[in-house]
Each structure stands twice: as C-alpha cells, then as structure tokens.
C-alpha cells in the first residue's frame, strides 16, 4: 500500500504536466465546434435543399464513424492534400490534426443539440417577435438565444465531457495527454506500478469532469433564473 502511494506521489507531477494538453485540446475544439455547429444547424434547419443535404450527410458521417477512424483519416489525409498543393506539412505539430478532428466531430454533435434546442422552442414566440417588427438578427439575439442556451447547455456539457474522455485517443497520432503520459511512464518502467498510474489518471479525469459539470450547472441555474420550472438544487447532477 505504501509502495503504491509512493509511486503515485512520485509520478503525479509528471502526469499533471500533461494536464494543459488535455484542457487545451478540450477548450479549443469546443470553441471551434460551437462555431461550426451553429452554421451546420442553421443549414439543417433552413430551406435550402443543397446545404441541408450536405449538412445532414456530414452530421451522419461524423456520428456514425468512431473517433479513432476520423483521427487517423485526418492525420493521413490533410498532409496528402497539402503536399499536393505545395504546402509542406513536415514541421506541423500533430496537435493540429487532433484539433481539426475533434472540432469536426464535435461540430456534428453540437449541430444536433442546437437543432433540438431550436425545435423545442415554441414557434409562436418567433412569430410574435416577427410581428413586433424584429429582424432575424434581433429575433435570434433576444428570443432564440436566451431560451435555446438554457436548454442546450446541459447537453453541450455532456458532449464536452465525452470529448474530454475521448482526448486520450489522440495518443494514436502522437499527442500525449494524461493517459498517454501514463502509458509512456508505464513503458519506461517496464510495467511497474501501472495499475496505480491508471487509477490516478482516472481520478484526475473524474475530478476534471466534476469541476466542468459544477461550472455548467451554475451557469444553467443562472440562465434559468426566469424559468421556475427548471430550477434544481443538485449541482453535480447530470441532466438528460
């Protein structure tokens, strides 16, 4: 028991050094994905059949294939395309491919969430806003966004937590986050203390997830201030 604690204490700094990699990937991909997902959802809700079909196919593909396949596909494909067009990719960080892949994957899921939040909105409110003479931008900002954000945020958090867990797959293309670091340490030590390292990594992931969940629930509570039906006191609860 004391040996295990010693191993954990010895390697905890090395593991925590890799923590920024995970958070960096998570934050950047979520931001890009929210941006892309907004446009994808717009295309899917809208009436233009071409953009609608394209976004539907994109969303279906991203939801239907495992993240690892997408990661490897982008890791192989982008250099091929770039080198054909005369751009050298030899100096690029593998992180770029991981970011592209994760943000494209998340964009599809976010688009679905945004669309469901839009559908859940009462259509008469939009009609009322239009009858009051609001333009499309004004309608979006004052009517759709405040209510849609409150209903979409718990789902967005769930998907972000999924992404946080899935960033460890990026070890396949050479981006080492906490789990990748632990794997390296295990390989270096010829497998001594591997169970302890894995459990430590699991606990770190768990705590990170709980913190994100707490923040999101606080923000959701603030957004639902005017809606007494949605008030809950559970700050660590996952909402469906």
């Amino acid at each position, binding site marked *: 028991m004391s040996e295990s604690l010693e191993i954990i204490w010895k390697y905890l700094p090395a593991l925590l050094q890799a923590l920024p990699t995970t958070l960096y990937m998570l934050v950047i991909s979520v931001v890009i994905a929210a941006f892309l997902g907004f446009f994808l959802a717009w295309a899917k809700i809208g009436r233009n059949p071409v953009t609608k079909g394209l976004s539907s196919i994109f969303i*279906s*593909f991203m*939801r*239907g*294939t*495992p*993240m*690892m*396949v*997408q990661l*490897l*596909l982008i890791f*192989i*494909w982008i250099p*091929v395309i770039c080198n054909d067009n005369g751009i050298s990719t030899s100096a690029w960080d593998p992180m770029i491919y991981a970011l592209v892949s994760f943000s494209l994957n998340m964009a599809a899921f976010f688009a679905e969430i945004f669309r469901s939040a839009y559908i859940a909105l009462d259509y008469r409110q939009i009609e009322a806003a239009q009858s009051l003479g609001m333009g499309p931008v004004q309608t979006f900002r004052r009517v759709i966004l405040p209510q849609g954000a409150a209903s979409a945020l718990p789902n967005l958090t769930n998907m972000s*937590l999924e992404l946080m*867990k*899935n960033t*460890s*797959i990026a*070890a*396949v293309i050479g981006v080492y986050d906490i*789990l990748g670091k632990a*794997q390296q340490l295990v390989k270096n030590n010829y*497998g001594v203390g*591997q*169970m302890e390292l*894995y*459990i430590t*990594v*699991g606990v770190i*992931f*768990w705590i*990170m*997830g*709980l913190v994100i969940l707490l923040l999101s629930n606080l923000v959701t509570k603030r957004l639902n201030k005017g809606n007494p039906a949605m008030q809950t006191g559970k700050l*660590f609860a*996952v909402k*469906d």
Partner: protein
Amino acid sequence: MEIYTTCSQKVLSGVPTTLSLTLWSVVLALVLGILLSFGVLSRLVPVRVFFSVICSFLKGIPILIFLYAFHTAIDSIMGGLDNMFGFYTYDIRKPPTYIFAVFALALSYAPYMCDMITSAMHTIPKGQWEACDAAGFTGWQKMSRIIIPQCIVIAIPNFGNHFVNLLKASSLSCMVTIMEMMGEARNYATMSQKFLECYIVCALWYWFIFVVFEQAFRVIEKRTGRYLQPGIPVLKRKRRRFHMAEQQRGILEEAK
C-alpha cells in the same frame, strides 16, 4: 481500385468480432446497469449516495483506461483464479483479451444504462405505483405487469443510442490487440502502406453499420412507441367484446 476490394475484405473479416464484442458488452452493461440502478433507487440514503458516487466515477473515466487496466490485470486475475481453484491450465501466452475487453466496455457503459433505467422509472407517474398498491399487487407483480412494460418502451430510444455508441467505442479495443474492424484496417494499412485507402474503407463500413442499426432502432421505436402517441389508431387490436356480455348472461341465468 484493387486495393479497395482487398481492404474491404480485410475489414469485413473483422465485422463478426466487432458485432459480438458490442452485443456481449451491451448485454453485460445492461445487467450491471440494472444492479447499479437497484442501488441508486434504494430508500436508504447512504446506499443511494454510495452508488451515485460510483456511477459518477465510472462515467468520468475514459474507456481507454478501462481497457488498459483490464488488459494489464489479466495475468494477475487469471493466474490468481487458476491457483485458487487448482486448475493450472492458464496459458500465459494466450491471454483471454477478448473477455476482458468485453468486461471493460461493459463497465464503462454500465452507468449510462443505469441512468437510462432510472430516468425511465421516474417518468412513470406516481399514481400508478399507488394504484398498484391499492389494488393489492405484490412487489413482483407491480414491477412485472405495470412498471417494467412501460419502462422498456420509454427506454428503447436511449438504448439504441447507447448501443450505437458502444459499437463505435468497440473500435478502441484494437489498442489492446483485439483484431476487430479497426484492428484489421490498421494492420493491413501498415502491411500494404496504403493508409488513406484503408481508413476510408473502414470509415465507410462503420458508417454503413451505424446507419443500419440506427434505422433498425428507429423502426423498433416506432413499433413499440405507437401506444404512446394518442392520435394514431392501433391496427387490429384484439378486443374481448363479448367477454362482459357473457359474464352478465351467466349471472342473469344464475339469478333465474
């Protein structure tokens, strides 16, 4: 073009492994989820808190950690069992990686199944539980006749989602040397040095299987959920129209 057909053959040879891995781990996850949901729905507060924390912990861990941890624990677990029961048949050169991958996937999806079950339980109105008690049903009768048939219908869309997610997550088990679709594709890619073609073929087959399962679950959902939608008429519903009339006639005759 030739590379696509050969790669397709290689990938398709991994399909049975992927499907059986998914199926077994879904079944095991469902069993574990039911066990967890007993704990989460318990009346005792300490038990409930304990199982909620366990659920949250299992949910917060990446699947890769489960796979790696179970993979490394194979030798100690199997060797320990071997020594304990005195079989001495465990061959260290052929570890049962498949079974342990099934356990890892099942354990990582058990909390989701538990959530699915508890949320389905909460959708059933309280009046039905009370009505069952008022009608004098025993606990088992109440669950098997009233609650569970409704829960299954409510839980099916969620279950389909988790099944498809698990199908995708099973691709991770190629990291612990199991040759399913992804493993075959990676293997053939490194062998033939045609990475792009292999991964494209693999992605397309995964997409195809995903769409098939998604549509199948949509059909099942529609079929089982038609009683939930009030406007749609139920076709060919068997009604016992003369049931009451016959009983009444019997009573009348007795009275005479």
